[in-house]
């Protein structure tokens, strides 16, 4: 399957956007003035940390919606979307946890603390690790997709808790998106912050598009393999409309 033009353009945009966001975050954004000078460089983690966290939530939302769509329509496409988004979500969750930890060392003088925000976020990570454990424990593809979808729905129920945790609990984690506090960022910082978030969202869409494409390809390779094992030859498939080489719009 050739890469579609839309995907190529999307990849191109991401290749340009990511260095631009890095430039905005590391060079263009001013130093934070209301904190001690030693941790000012560390403060710049916000341009990566918050977008990573936001993107992970977005990814898990995609898993949630795709899971519902799978259960409703029974179409393989939505199961692929759900698992691809969950995978990317785990990657961004790890990025957010690790970048937060690097910031916490100078800011809180510790890599890790059992703060509610950190704890609930780690649980979110475990939720989606469990999602893949469930997947790997089921052999039959239809059942695997169905069960994973049910779990994908349940798993998302506790994701909003993470988001709300810094508002409900006494926590030392800063609240960035507080409508009453005007972001807590200066004007130059806000621009870099917003660009960072947009870029990470684009990055997510790009990763998702590529990952979904890859997954379609591997599904079709598997289908072809099964067909060949059953004794069909490739020539048998090529004449038919139902060929696994046909368009993936199942």
């Amino acid at each position, binding site marked *: 399957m050739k890469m579609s033009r839309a995907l190529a353009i999307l990849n191109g945009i991401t290749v340009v956007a990511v260095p631009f966001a890095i430039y905005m975050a590391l060079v263009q954004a001013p130093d934070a003035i209301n904190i001690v000078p030693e941790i000012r460089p560390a403060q710049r983690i916000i341009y990566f940390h918050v977008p990573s966290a936001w993107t992970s939530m977005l990814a898990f939302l995609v898993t949630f919606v795709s899971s519902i769509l799978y*259960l409703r329509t029974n179409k393989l496409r939505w199961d692929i979307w759900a698992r691809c988004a969950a995978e990317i979500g785990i990657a961004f969750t790890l990025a957010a946890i690790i970048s937060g930890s690097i910031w916490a060392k100078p800011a809180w003088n510790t890599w890790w603390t059992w703060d509610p925000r950190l704890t*609930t976020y780690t*649980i*979110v990570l*475990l*939720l989606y690790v*469990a999602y893949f*454990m*469930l997947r790997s*424990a*089921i*052999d039959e593809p239809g*059942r695997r997709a*169905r*069960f994973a*979808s*049910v*779990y994908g*729905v*349940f*798993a998302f*129920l*506790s994701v909003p*808790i993470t988001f709300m945790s810094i508002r*409900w609990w006494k926590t030392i984690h800063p609240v960035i998106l507080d409508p009453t506090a005007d972001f807590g960022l200066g004007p130059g910082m806000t621009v870099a912050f917003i660009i960072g978030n947009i870029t990470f969202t684009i990055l997510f869409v790009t990763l998702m598009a590529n990952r979904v494409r890859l997954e379609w390809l591997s599904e079709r390779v598997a289908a072809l393999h099964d067909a060949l094992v059953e004794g069909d030859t490739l020539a048998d498939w090529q004449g038919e409309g139902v060929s696994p080489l046909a368009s993936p719009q199942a």
Partner: protein
Amino acid sequence: MSRYFHVIAAVLWKDVRTELRTKEVFTSMVVFAALALLIFNFAFELRIPNKSLVVPGILWVTVAFAGVLGLGRAFIAEKDKGSLAGLLLAPVDRSAVYFGKMLANLIFILVVEILILPLITVFFNVPLITLPLLLILLLGTIGFAAVGTIFSALAVNTRAREVLLPVLLFPVLLPVLVAGIRTTIGLLEGDPLSDHLNWLQLIAFFDLLYLVVAFLTFDYVVEE
């Protein structure tokens, strides 16, 4: 509608009667809970200045672990004896089967709680048997049984069924567990229940949410 409740009651009664005859699940849950309490007692006894600091955690961890033990059996026994297929072939709404099973699990866990509450009171000398605390425990257990029952049905059809259930269950139950432990801590410190109404609402909200989502998705879990 009354037929629907009839089915729920029939499934519930079937499970209770099976359990009364074998006492398989119940015995293992109670013995496990007692063992857990003893181990906690050894772990904390000599170091903690004030036992009410650790009792909320001990209570909820013991209930959660003993509960997951019982939940695991709920469908494994049915599956192994082949009676699950019969249950699902019955010409009734499957969500009624879910609610029957869920209520049976709820009752089993509640009975275990009724037994371990006095034990904790004795072992740790902390007054646990108060009306607000029982209310919190009841609400938490409803959420636990609601998610646990459907996940038990999920896990029974997988390869690593007994290992998988707690891994699936505990992260999803986090909101209920956290709210339950927070409220228990507050109550043991002498706060009135009205100080913790937001947590109470949170548990009630999640109970409802879990029940609704389980009601909507149970069909997909037992579909063959």
